[in-house]
C-alpha cells in the first residue's frame, strides 16, 4: 500500500496554487482523508498532487447573520468546536471519528461528494453554495455554485479541472425554524446506510437524504409532515450493496426523515416559544 510516483507541489498562496492547478492539473490535497487511502491503494494515480495546506487564508470560519463561511482548510473538528451553525455542528458529530475529524476538511468532504456523506446534505438542505477559484488569463477569478448544482453524481462535484473550492457558505437557519439530523450507520462513525437532515420553519419543511441516491436527495415537504415518510420513500432511489438492501434503505430513510422532521419541528416550535 504505497502510492505510485507523483510530483508534489506545495504552493504558499492562492494564485500559486491556482497557477499550478491550471498548468499541471493534478489532485488537490487538503485533509487527505479520502485521497491518501486512494493513492495508497493505487485506486488513483494522479501525476501531480497539489498540497494546499500551506496556502494562507484558507482556514477561516466566518460567522455572519446570514450564515457561516467555511474555508477550504477548516478542519471538521475546528468547525464542530466553533459551533457556529446548529445543523452543521450536529452533522459534524456524525462524521467519522475524532482522528479523521482532526485532519479532514468540510470543503474537502463537499468536493468529494460521497452520496452517503453528511455535509453535502447539510449544504443542500440549507441551500448553501460553494465558492470556486481558478487561474484565468493571469488573474484569480471566482464563481459561486449553488448546492443544487454542486453535487453532480456519486463522487462527482461541479468543481472543474484547474479549479479549487476555496470556501463553502452555509446559510443560517431562519428565525423560528429548527433543524435535526438522524442517520443509521453500521458502526459508530461509519458512512451512513441512510440518513436524513431536516429544516422545519414557519414557511415549510425541507429534508435532505443521504445514502439513497447519487447525491443528497432534497425533498420539499411543505407543511404536511404526516405524509413525509411516504413521500421521501417515493423520492429516493437507493441501491443494494453489501451492507444493506435497497428495500431496507428505502424503509429506513423514511423512518429517519420522520424522526428528523419531528425533532426539527420541535426545535422550531421551541425557538418560537410555542
Amino acid at each position, binding site marked *: 500500500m504505497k*502510492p505510485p510516483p507523483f510530483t508534489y507541489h506545495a504552493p504558499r498562496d492562492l494564485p500559486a496554487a491556482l497557477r499550478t492547478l491550471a498548468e499541471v492539473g493534478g489532485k488537490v490535497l487538503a485533509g487527505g482523508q479520502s485521497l491518501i487511502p486512494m493513492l495508497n491503494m493505487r485506486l488513483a494515480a494522479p501525476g501531480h498532487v497539489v498540497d494546499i495546506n500551506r496556502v494562507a487564508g484558507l482556514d477561516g470560519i466566518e460567522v455572519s447573520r446570514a450564515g457561516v463561511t467555511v474555508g477550504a482548510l477548516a478542519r471538521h473538528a475546528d468547525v464542530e468546536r466553533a459551533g457556529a451553525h446548529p445543523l452543521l455542528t450536529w452533522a459534524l458529530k456524525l462524521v467519522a471519528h475524532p482522528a479523521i475529524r482532526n485532519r479532514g476538511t468540510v470543503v474537502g468532504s463537499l468536493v468529494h461528494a460521497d452520496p452517503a456523506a453528511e455535509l453535502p446534505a447539510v449544504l443542500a438542505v440549507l441551500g448553501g453554495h460553494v465558492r470556486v477559484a481558478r487561474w484565468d488569463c493571469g488573474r484569480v477569478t471566482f464563481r459561486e455554485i449553488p448546492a443544487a448544482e454542486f453535487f453532480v453524481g456519486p463522487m462527482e462535484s461541479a468543481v472543474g479541472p484547474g479549479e479549487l473550492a476555496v470556501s463553502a457558505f452555509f446559510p443560517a437557519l431562519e428565525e423560528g425554524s429548527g433543524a435535526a439530523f438522524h442517520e443509521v450507520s453500521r458502526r459508530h462513525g461509519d458512512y451512513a446506510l441512510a440518513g436524513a437532515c431536516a429544516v422545519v420553519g414557519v414557511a415549510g419543511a425541507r429534508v435532505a437524504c443521504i445514502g439513497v441516491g447519487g447525491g443528497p436527495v432534497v425533498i420539499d415537504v411543505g407543511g404536511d409532515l404526516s405524509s413525509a415518510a411516504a413521500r421521501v420513500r417515493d423520492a429516493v432511489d437507493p441501491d443494494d450493496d453489501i451492507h444493506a438492501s435497497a428495500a431496507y434503505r428505502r424503509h429506513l430513510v423514511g423512518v429517519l426523515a420522520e424522526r428528523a422532521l419531528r425533532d426539527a419541528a420541535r426545535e422550531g416550535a421551541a425557538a418560537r416559544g410555542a
Partner: protein
Amino acid sequence: MTTKLFGAPVQRREDPRLLTGQGRYLDDLGRDALAAAFVRSPHAHARVRDIDVSGALDVEGLVAIYTWEDLPERVGRALPLLIPHPALTHGRTAYPLARDVVRHVGEPVVMVVAADRYAAEDACALIEVDYEPLKPVVGIEEAVQGAQLVHEDVPGNVGAHLVQEVAAADGRGAREAIETSPHTLAFRLDIERSASMPLEGRGVYARWDGRDLRVYSSTQTSTSVRMAVAAALGLPLPQVEVIAPDVGGGFGVKIVHPWPEEVLVPWAAMTLGREVKWTEDRREHFVSSAHERGQVQYVRVGFDDDGRVLGLDVTILHDHGAYTPYGIIVPIVTSTQLLGPYKPGAYRVEFTAVYTNTVQVTPYRGAGRPQGVFCMERTMDKIARYLGKDRTEVRAANFIRPDEFPYDQGMTFQDGRPLIYDSGNYPEMLRMIKELIGWDTFERRPGLGIGIGCYVEGTGVGPYEGGHVQITSDGRVHVSTGLTSQGQGHETAFAQIAATELGVPIERVSVVTGDTRRFGYAVGTFASRAAVVSGNAIALACRKVREKALRIAADALEADPGDLDIADGIVHVVGAPSAAVPLSTVAVLANPLRYAFDEETAKATQFATAAAPDRPPVAEGEEPGLEGRDYYSPIRSTFAAGMHAAIVETDPDTAEIKVLRYAVVHDCGRLINPMIVEGQIHGGVAQGIGGALYERMVYDQHGQLVNASFMDFLMPYATEIPRVETGHLETPSPLNPLGIKGAGEAGVIPVSAVIASAVEDAEGIEINRMPISPSELFELRMG
C-alpha cells in the same frame, strides 16, 4: 512482600512497553533491509500463461524479480501439509509462487525485491502476467455441485469426508434413535466467513551472514518455522535461528507455516547476500492469508418431553477455501466440540470439506467451535421453543452431571486423543450465569430479548512444551519457553508461576518466548494452550531449580533441605529466619569459579571456600549453575467451559440491534491471573460480537473479495462493545500439576449463538443464519 502471586490480579508487565510504542514488531526491525513485494493474482481461478517482467526492469531501486521458474527445486516445492489425516484424502497446498494455476485472488505469482517498498510496488505494477481465466468455484453450494473443479485432480471438490458416530447406551445409532423419539426437528443453519484480522499482519525479515541464517517472523510458532525454513533451504538446523519479536496479535492465522513469504524472504536474503524484509499490508492480509468460519449445517434431532436429546444427526458442509495446509482441524473441532456440556444420547456427525476458489481456511480463534456451539445452542433453543419450555431448563436436562467426570464423549478429539472431559460443574455454572444476567427476573417486552449460550472448549493440547529457568548470581530469574506470545500476557503469567514456585519477587523474573536461540523445542501458541502446557513446564522446571537451590543452601547452612523454604528470594531455615542465604549466593555456589568478576562471585573461587579435597568441585550427577529445564506433555486436552448470556434491544423501526448487557461465567480451572483471563474474555467477546453482528467476507460470483478493507469489512469498534460482566468458577483440572485449563479462545466461542438466541427472543423470528445485520433483520420481519 508475599511471593504468593499465583492467582493474583497482577498488572500486565508488558503493557507499558506495548502501549507506549516501545514494542518491537517485525516492521520495526531491519530498517536498512531490502523490501519485498508480490504480484498477486487478480483472478480467482486462472492458468498463468506468461509473465513479462520487461516493463519493470527500469524501475529505480529494483534488485530482483523472481517467478516460480526461478526457484531452486527445493524452494519451489509445494508447501507442506502440516496435519495429515486419513480422512483428508485429497489434501492440497499451494506453491510459494504460483506454478501454473492460481486458485484464489491474492495468490502470490511474482516476488519483487527492491531498495524500498515504494519501488517494489512500482515494479509489481509494471509486471504483466498473462492469465487464461478459468471458471471459479465460489460458495459451498457451487463447490458441492462439483460442476467446476478447484483442483483438476480432486473430484467433486471434496478434500475430506469424515463420519463419526457415537451410539446411545442401548447401542442404537443416532438416526434410529431420532426415528423413535417422541419429538423431532430438522433445520438448516448457516455461518459466514470471517478472519483473524490481527492488528499487525504477517511479516518476515531475514539476515544471512554467509554461514548462519537469522529469520524474524511475526509467527505463532518460531520453532516450527525454523525447521520448515531449514528444510526448504537445505540448511543444517543449527545454522538457522528464528525469532518471533513482539507480535501484534495472531488469533490463529500466524500458526500456519511456512507461509510462502517465510520461505521466499530468507531464500532471497541468501541468494542476494542482503537483508530482505516483507511486511504484509492490510489488503494483502485480506486476500492472501487465511479465513475461517464458513459452514452450512443440516441438523436433525430427536428428544423427549423434557427436552432431553435422544439422538442428534448433524451434516456439515465446510468451505475450506483453495488449500488445506492446516489439514481438517477446523471441521474436526466443530464436529467434536459441538457436544458442549451435553450428553446427547446418540450422536452422528458427518462433514465434507470442499474446495472453493477463495482464500484458504485455517483456524481462527475458536477454530470451528463457534460453528459447533451455534449448531448445538440453536438446537437447544428450538427444542425449548417447540416444547414451550424455558431455554435454560432444556439445557439443564441435557447437562453432564458433576459426578460423571471424567466424562468420555466417545469420540476422537483434534489431538488424536479420546474426547474425555476432565472436570467441570455445568449446573453450578448455569446457576451463576442466570443470577448474573438476571434470567429469572427478566421482563420480556417486544424489542427486548435475552439469550444464552454454553460451550466446552478442549484446551492445552499437546504434544508438549518446555521451560528453562536460570537463576544468575545477581539473584535474577530468567525464564524461557519456546512458544510465542502475541500479546496475551505471557510475560506476566509465566513470571507469576516462576515467582510463586521459586519464592522470589516477580520484579526479579524475566520471561523470553519464541526465540529459538533461547529454547529450541516447542510446538507453538494456539488452542488455548500456552498457560496449560508452557505454564506447567515452567512450573516443573522451577521445581527442579528449587530443589537444587535447597540442596546447595542446605550444604551452606548445614541444615536439612527439608527444613528450608524460600521467600523473597532468600533461602531460610523454617522457624529460624536468621539462618538464611540469598538465592544470588546459592547461584554463585552452584557454579564453582576460577575467576571472580565481582565481590559476590569471589565467594565461588578456589581459595575462597573450604572445599572438600576428596570431591570434585562439581559433584557427580550435578551440573554447574542454578538452572533447570523440564517439559510438560499432557496426556490429553483439558476441558474448559463457559456460559454467556446477553440482553439485546431491537429497534422496531430501523431494525438496529443493540447489545445492552453481556455476561460471562467462565471456568478455566485454577486462575493464574484473573485480570488477564478477564482481558482475554473481553477481547474474545468483542471478536464474537464482530462475528455475530458485523463481520463477513463477501465474495462475488467471480471470486473477488469485494470488502477487502477496513472500510467495508466491519470489525466492531469499542463503541459497539458493551461492558462485559464476568464471573469465575474454578474447577481445577486433575490432569496437570497446576490444575489449570486454557482461556485464550473462550470469549469468542458462543457469542453468535448467544446473540441469535437473544434476537430470536426479542423478535419472535427464528434466527438460523449469522451474522445478522439490521438490513437482514428487516428482511426477516418482512417475511
